[in-house]
Every structure is written in C-alpha cells, then in structure tokens.
C-alpha cells in the first residue's frame, strides 16, 4: 500500500500529481499504459471514484488518453507539456515565495543569485 500525503487539497488532485510525477521521472514513459483506476485505488487506499477523477483530470488536459476497451495511456508529448506546466508552477511556488521572504530579511537580488550559485555548487 502506498500512502498519500495529505496536504489538505482534494485527493483527486494529489493523485493526478502523483501520475504527473511518474511521467516526469519517466517511470511512466509516453505511450505506455497507466495502471487502472482500481489499481490506483487499492495502492493508495482511496475511493476508486476519487482515483477516476484524478485520471480524468489528466485526460481532460490531454496528458493521458483512453484506448477503448484496453485502458489509459500516456500521450505523446505529455512529458514536455508537463515540464512547461511545472516550470510555471515552480515560479509561482518557489520564486515568488523566495523573493517575498528575501525582502523580509533584507537580502538583495544579487545576494540571492549568489546564494543560488552557492547552493548549486555545494550539491
């Protein structure tokens, strides 16, 4: 059983993100079949209707597509589209917050870029 981290957002959105993560890390390559909603439900111990909702969200966005009678597959070009979407989110989630916090502490943009470089080198 996998556990779903509960960050308070609707579970179907968290499920959709887990699938996105899998596509991004190429655990689920393009044109490969994704597990069924029942498999997702069992694995994460969630209601199958919720799992289906998460999968359908990605179908609506063209990340997954349905092959009649067979199942769900990862669309071609899905990974690239997800990378673009996540970059946009990265800006909102990390950069905006970072600059907000930096301003509070009186860190200038130059100092901030230095810190980013330092962080990159130490890795």
């Amino acid at each position, binding site marked *: *059983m996998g556990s*779903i981290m*509960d*960050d*308070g*957002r*609707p*579970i*179907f959105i968290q499920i959709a993100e887990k699938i996105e993560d899998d596509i991004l890390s190429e655990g689920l390559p393009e044109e490969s079949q994704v597990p069924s*909603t*029942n498999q997702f*439900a*069992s694995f*994460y*111990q*969630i*209601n*199958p*209707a*919720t799992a289906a*909702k998460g999968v359908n969200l990605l179908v609506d966005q063209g990340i997954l597509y349905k092959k009649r009678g067979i199942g769900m597959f990862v669309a071609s070009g899905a990974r690239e589209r997800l990378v673009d979407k996540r970059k946009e989110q990265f800006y909102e989630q990390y950069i905006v917050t970072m600059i*907000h916090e930096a301003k509070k502490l009186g860190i200038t943009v130059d100092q901030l870029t230095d810190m980013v470089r330092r962080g990159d080198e130490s890795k």
Partner: protein
Amino acid sequence: MKPVIEVKRLNKTYGSETVVKDISFAVEENKIYGLLGRNGAGKTTIMHMLTAQLFPTSGEMKVFGENPYENNRVLSRMCFIKESQKYPDSFRVADVLAVAATLYPDWDQAYAQQLIEEFRLPLKRRMKKLSRGMLSSVGIIVGLASRAPLTIFDEPYLGLDAVARNLFYERLIEDYGEHPRTVILSTHLIDEVSNLLEHVIVIDNGSILINENADELRDKAYTAVGSAQHVSTYTAGKRVIHQESLGGMMTATIWGKGDKANRREAEGLGIQFAPVTLQQLIVHLTSDKGNGRVAD
C-alpha cells in the same frame, strides 16, 4: 439514476425523547458513504430503521424503491453488519458462514474462505469463545463476502488491531472496485477511513449536520495560523468554527474556501494556512465547545 435509499422527514421518538429529528437524505448507487457523528447522535437508530429492525415514528423511507418492512425483495439485497451482533449459543464460526451463504444471493464462498485465512479465524471455534476482535472479523467477512448491493457496516471493528483494520480497508477498496455496490460505513475512526469515502453524512443530535461529497468537504474549511492580533484581524467577518491561542499565537479554523484572495490577504499578515482533516472538522463542528453551527 434512482437512489438506493430515499429518506424523507424521518423521525424516531422514545417517549418524550426525539432521537432522530426530521431527517431527509438520499443514498446513490455504488458509492461508499460515511455515516459519521458522536455517540448517541442517532446513527445506529437510522441504520436500524433502514434495515427494517426498527419502526420510524413518522416519515417516509424507501430502500431500492420500496418499503423495507417484511419485504424480502429489499432485505435479500442488503447486509447489515452491526457492532453488537448476537449469535445462537451453539454456533461455530463455520455455522455463521453457512447461514450467511444461504441468506445472501451474491455470496462468494471462495472469497469468504480467502478472508478467513487472511483474518486467521478458527472455523471450528464457538462464536461465544471468540475474542472481541475475532467477532468483529466474522462480521467483516460476512459483510464483504455477501457482496450485497447495499452493505452497511456499523462500527465493524471493535477490538480489531491495526493490522486487521488495514486488511479490511484494503479488501473493501479492492472488492468494491471489482464488484461495485453501495456501502455505508459508520465509524469513529474517521481519519482511517476518510480517503475511502466518496460521500459523507454527519449526524449530530439526531439531525443532519453535513451531507456532502468528500472531496468538496475537504475544500470547505481551513486553519489559519499566525500572531493572535493578525489572526483576529483576518478572521473578522469570517465564520470561525474553532479557535485556540497559545501565548501570542493563534490558530483559527475557518468555514469557507481558502482561495487565492484569502491567501494573499493572509500572506500580508504573516498568516499561514494549514489543512483541516475530516476528523478535525467533525470534532470542531460537533463538540459542545465548537461555535460552529453550519446549516448550509
């Protein structure tokens, strides 16, 4: 789609005491419902009326479109597993399962066998010699293997350890996925089951407090954490259902959606948002301290 259960203005009184007050709700086909609430809220009374073990004082009630009382068409399609199930003294585990096999048309004997092994039940032991947890396991096995189109579990796991409870959740989700049916789960272990539920009905003092899709309910409330002064400023004009302060800090649980505008306002005040679990939400709404009465 026709609902599996339709209840209109249902009442149950004992003498001068009203335990179920004017309750109306519908249960849709092939969904997992949580029937939640405090002890004595009226959940068990409602389930006993739905399963024709108790007469309502007034109101209308239909199960599979019909009145359930002495109605075999309805009763053969439902399975009610209750906490305090009594068995004849001479019954062994095997006898209970044999009777269940004749009661439920969709009974799956092979599946029952598999569950007996997984729950490690001694088939030959007398029911009255079983531990509390084992008794609960018998109920769970009957409930799952019956595959009844309407299966009701009332606090099914008294005395059951965490491993066995987890096994129950796993099997329930799995079997429900393969054989969709309507399930009503009444329990106090809200955190454990919250992800399994598609719909939540909360009963408080004999009335319905919440009747909501589980996903939407998740979005209904959030907690704001920050300095007491700023949180007070932020919560002004908002519906606070719970509030606590420690030193100069305050947490307030707010009934409402924490949308982008709220987030921006909160950020400006140095307030952070935290999610509210279903369990916390229900505790806040149903505890006497709670100042949250939400009608809508």
